[in-house]
């Protein structure tokens, strides 16, 4: 018995594209080389719709929709770039830069940071919002890695990769609202946690919040692309 694939046709930025039922707008856009800015999404991890940078407009609805968690439907008309969307994206980026302490010039991620890149790409030239300058700790207890809360944007990629892929579930979120923080185990030091030292969270962290101690001073590019391949290999087994 053959399973018939339910195909949908839709428009993204005026381009006619086809999609399988259940796909998200972001997946379809990526397949068709249409760029939508993202930060919390990472290919190979579940989506949480937290950063809201991927918001798009859908014709016939005044609301905005996060592309990473919105499924396609037949006849959908999506716009990814409008003045309204750009403005919101900029304000969200501004909020992130003002939320904690981002001092790019002394940051390990300088030049390899997704937040920094997005800021440049979206044309963020300065931050008008008052800097919150919170006093945040650095967890350097791990033998190989460091967690610097000053650079964390709470995207929870680390939480997801450790729970979903590595299966260790070391990371979680503590507290709420503006005071929420990433913690290891039940708020123990990372070096004393159940971490397997696989390094996956460091590779997927978009900023300089998680980094390899030996990479200080050197270029510290990250390689989150291993995830889809790893998933494929696991499925094949």
């Amino acid at each position, binding site marked *: 018995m053959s399973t018939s694939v339910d195909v949908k046709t839709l428009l993204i930025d005026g381009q006619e594209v086809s999609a399988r039922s259940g796909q998200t707008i972001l997946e379809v856009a990526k397949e068709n080389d249409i760029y939508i800015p993202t930060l919390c999404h990472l290919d190979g991890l579940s989506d*949480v*719709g*937290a*950063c*809201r940078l991927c*918001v798009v407009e859908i014709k016939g609805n005044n*609301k*905005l929709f*996060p592309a990473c968690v919105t499924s396609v439907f037949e006849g959908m008309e999506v716009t990814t770039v409008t003045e*309204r969307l750009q*403005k*919101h994206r900029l*304000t*969200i980026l501004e*909020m*992130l830069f*003002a*939320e904690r302490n981002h*001092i790019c*010039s*002394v940051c390990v991620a300088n030049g390899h940071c997704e937040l920094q890149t997005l800021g440049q790409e979206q044309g963020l030239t300065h931050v*008008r*919002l*008052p800097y*919150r300058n919170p006093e945040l700790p650095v967890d350097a207890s791990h033998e190989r890695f460091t967690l610097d809360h000053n650079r964390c*944007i*709470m995207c929870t990629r680390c939480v997801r990769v450790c729970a979903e892929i590595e299966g260790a579930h070391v990371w979680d*979120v503590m*507290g*709420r*609202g*503006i*005071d*929420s923080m990433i913690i290891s185990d039940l708020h123990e030091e990372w070096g004393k946690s159940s971490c397997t030292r696989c390094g996956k969270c460091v590779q997927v962290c978009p900023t300089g919040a998680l980094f390899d101690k030996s990479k200080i001073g050197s270029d510290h590019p990250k390689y989150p692309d291993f995830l889809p391949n790893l998933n494929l290999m696991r499925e094949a087994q």
Partner: protein
Amino acid sequence: MIVMDDTSCMVNVARFFIEFCMTESCGKCIPCRAGTAQMHTLLTRICAGHGTMDDLDLLVELCATVKETSLCGLGQTAPNPVLSTLKYFKHEYIDHIVHKRCPAGVCNMEAPVAAESPVEVLA
């Protein structure tokens, strides 16, 4: 609906509601987590008599982003008290900012302090 008379300061009321939303925010999405905190900072500034007209513009922009991009109903409705007080009582905001005066006599206007810190950091 909430009924109030002229002994309530509308800016302070807005600040109070935003403080509530800020502490109730779960923190998952950025606009609600960071946006309500930023709005609270700006409203606190205005209540203390340190606000500027630029702050007011920023506040309006924050309202739009938090309202339109937040993930759940808490963030999507958080800016409403600010938006409705701004719509009907904008003069009270202006009184606080321009005349350093709270018409209802609720806000405690301190003398503006110098924003500059003696220690200059950063390269």
